Structure formats: structure tokens, C-alpha cells
């Protein structure tokens, strides 16, 4: 039974690429659509596709779409221009630019932050998924680089944004995870330590433009050590993030 299930799963996975839809076809609705040689605003226009002609959307890179017209000529068109084309249903192509509205209701977010963890340098990456406009589940990984010791920190938590409709969004967060500390070899030989930890934090996100976010945060950790006293390091970090 197990084997059968595994085989079925394999068959489904193997058939998945076949299920990929053919490239979508849309109709030019503006007087003409300019096609550029590259995916950027500075690239020269080499072709124009007149109104009413069908184009095939071949691929996308950032905000640019590579399209092919009926005569097989290819070029790149910006998302704003493609948003003015029509689908076979007569609806505008649904490729609106991400802006404040998307920032308010984005689901996925990832970023890189750097700062200070109780005197040590910290480099941190995080990814989050919004459960609703205010609450997001977040996973963070940090590397700590100090003069006396190095370490890694992995934690999961929840982030709560008070006002998703503001451009500057204050948030609070809390969570738990693991920390591993490796004292430097040049100092007294002390063993590596792995401890559990919990944290609370506060910070803010600022919507910059398009899908970019500036983020700053302050965290207070409690490391549950084997010794009599827990450690309570503090951390601040700044960085950039983007949503998608």
C-alpha cells in the first residue's frame, strides 16, 4: 500500500510539468505596443505591435515581459503597458504594479538585517508569511560574530503589525528558538553550548517604494542556560526587505 501510494505520488509529480499551461495570449488595446530589446526602460524600441493584434507572453523578468507577436518578432514590454492589453475574455491583463495597497496586504516577505547582538556583530535573514493583514509567522536565522565567541541563532515567532494601512508600520514580535555559542579557540577552552531561547521584540517597517521595505527592530532574548542564571542579551538590527 505504501509503495503504491509512493508510486502514485511519483506519477503525479512526473506528470506535473505536462500540466504547465501554454504561454498566455493577449490583445493589444492601446494604439500600439512598443517592444524593446531588453528588460529595462533604457533599451531601444525596435518593433511596435498595432492595436488589435494578438501577442504571446513568453516570460517575465522583474517588471518586464518578453512578448512575441504574430509574425514571430520578440521584444520586452513593461508591466504598465501590458496591463493595458486585454485577455481573450475582454478583461484587462491582471498585472497591476505592486504599491501601497499590496504592501498593506502582502503575504510573503523576506529580508536581510545586520546589527549588534550584545556587543557581537549579527547578520540575520528572515522570511515571513502573513496569516492576516496584521499577524505574520516569521522564521529568522542569525549568525553572531563576536570577539570572544561566535554563534548561530534560529528562531520562529509571530509578528503583529498594529496598523497595516500606515506607511510606517510599528510591530511587536515574540517567539522561541535555539542558540549555539562557540567560544573562540584562542580563549579558555570552553565547550560549545546549545540553549533554547525566547524573545520579545519591537520595531517598525517603512514602505519605500514598489516592493521594498526598510526594517529596524530591537529584541530582548532570554537564553535558558544550564547554569543558575539565564542570559538576557539584547539585539538591534537594521536592513532591507521585500515582499512578493
Amino acid at each position, binding site marked *: 500500500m505504501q509503495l503504491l501510494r509512493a508510486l502514485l505520488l511519483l506519477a503525479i509529480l512526473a506528470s506535473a510539468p505536462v500540466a*504547465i*499551461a501554454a*504561454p*498566455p*495570449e*493577449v*490583445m493589444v488595446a492601446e494604439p500600439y505596443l512598443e517592444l524593446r*530589446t*531588453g*528588460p*529595462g*526602460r*533604457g*533599451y531601444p524600441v525596435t518593433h511596435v505591435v498595432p492595436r488589435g493584434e*494578438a501577442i504571446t*507572453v*513568453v*516570460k*517575465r*523578468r*522583474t*517588471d*518586464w*515581459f*518578453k512578448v512575441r507577436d504574430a509574425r514571430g518578432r520578440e521584444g520586452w514590454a513593461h508591466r504598465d503597458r501590458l496591463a493595458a492589453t486585454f*485577455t*481573450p*475574455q475582454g478583461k484587462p*491583463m*491582471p*498585472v497591476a504594479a505592486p504599491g501601497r495597497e499590496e504592501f498593506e496586504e502582502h503575504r510573503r516577505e523576506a529580508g*536581510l538585517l*545586520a546589527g549588534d547582538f550584545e556587543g557581537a*556583530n549579527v*547578520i540575520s*535573514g528572515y522570511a515571513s508569511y502573513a496569516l492576516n493583514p496584521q499577524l505574520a509567522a516569521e522564521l529568522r536565522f542569525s*549568525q553572531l*560574530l563576536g570577539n570572544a565567541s*561566535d554563534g548561530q541563532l534560529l528562531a520562529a515567532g509571530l509578528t503583529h503589525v498594529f496598523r497595516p494601512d500606515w506607511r510606517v508600520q510599528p510591530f511587536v514580535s515574540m517567539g522561541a528558538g535555539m542558540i549555539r555559542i562557540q567560544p*573562540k*579557540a*584562542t580563549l579558555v577552552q570552553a565547550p560549545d553550548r546549545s540553549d533554547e531561547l525566547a524573545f520579545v521584540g519591537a520595531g517598525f517597517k517603512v514602505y519605500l517604494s*514598489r*516592493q*521594498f521595505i526598510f526594517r529596524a527592530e530591537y529584541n530582548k532574548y532570554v537564553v535558558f542556560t544550564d547554569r543558575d542564571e539565564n542570559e538576557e542579551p539584547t539585539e538591534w538590527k537594521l536592513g*532591507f526587505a*521585500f515582499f512578493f
Partner: protein
Amino acid sequence: METRIRFLLLTGLLALAGCATTGGTPTQAPAAAAPEGAESPSVITPQVERREVRVADIDTENWEAGAYIGSLSVEDFEVNLVYGARIAYHISEDFFAEGILGTSDAGISSYERLSGSAPLLTDSEREFRYYSLGFGWNMLPGEVFLGGDRAYNSAVYLTAGAGATRFAGDDRFTVTLGAGARILIKDWLAAHLDIRDHVLEVDVVGTNKQTHNFEATLSLTAFF
């Protein structure tokens, strides 16, 4: 025959026009408009495949991954072969996020060579391994020409990142600054020439010292 078809089409159109203006059913339309067996006069239906367009169906190529090889000057420890991997996510036409991971074996310092004393570092401590996460800015996008017939899209970009380096038995916080040029051989294949400076503090002789470790690499990456 042709006049008959035209007649049928016209009566069909008239019936539909009447329908549109009165908003009612075409009760007065002549029964002859759609005789049995004749093709239904669907003049308005466009001859396009009715398929829903989903943006998710469009093949996006925002990720770029590849490998590089070049030389790295480890301060005080000669210039050595370096190789590594690079992954980038293109956020917009101007900016990208980038991660690099490289490794090299540092050589012998002039001090070790001249003094003839015991080596300062063991072989495993001589390994220079770094990673860096950061952002890049496509400062000068453009095209380059090869002869008169070929044009390739290109960009000159600046990068800044933070990461860590393992060298001399120690992990060190590292800031990596760089500049590079990218040429797209195909839509999905790019060649890069990168210059980077890894700035970190190194403690080999008992005191911390800031070092600049310059690197020049050639890489090949694919968009996916």
C-alpha cells in the same frame, strides 16, 4: 450563393441590432433568418481561444544562479585561486539581492618565507572561506556590441553585502563591497566579471588588524 450568405448575415445582424436597441427578444425577426441546417450567424464571436489568462502561468525568470572562479588576494598571504557559487534574486530592473559563497587556500606570508620560523597557520587554518548576503544596484544597464551584427544586453552594477569569513581558525564579520559587469549571452545565460573587496579583521599575530582582501572573478550564471 454568396448573396444568400450575405443576406443571412445581414438579417442576423439586424436582428441582433434590434435586440440591442430595444433590449427585448427579436420577436419580429424573420423566421428565414436561421433556416435549418445553415451555419448559425455568430458574427460577433471573436475567433480566439477562450482561455483564462493567469499571470502565474507566465514563466518568471527572477532567480539567477551560477559559479565563479578567479583569484583572491588574501592580505599578507599571497594571491590564490578562488572559486564559489552565487545566487541572486532580481527584485526590479534596478536592484537585486545576492548571496555568494566562496573558498580559497591562502598561501605563505612573506614573514614565514623570510624568517624560516614555524608556520603561523596550519593547513586547515589557511583555508579562506566566506559568505556574503547583500544587495546590488544595476548602475549602468545597456548593450554591448560584438562586431556589427551582434548586440548583447549588459549591466555594470555595484554590490554591498555583509557576511562572515572563516580564516586563521576564526569566524569574522565581513563587509563585502564590489562592482561587476554582466553580459547576457542568451536571455537566460549571463557571464559576469566581478571585483570584490572583503573587509575583515584578522588576528594572526596576536592583535586585530583590518584587512582588505581583493578578488577578481569570472562567472557564468543561469536565470530561472
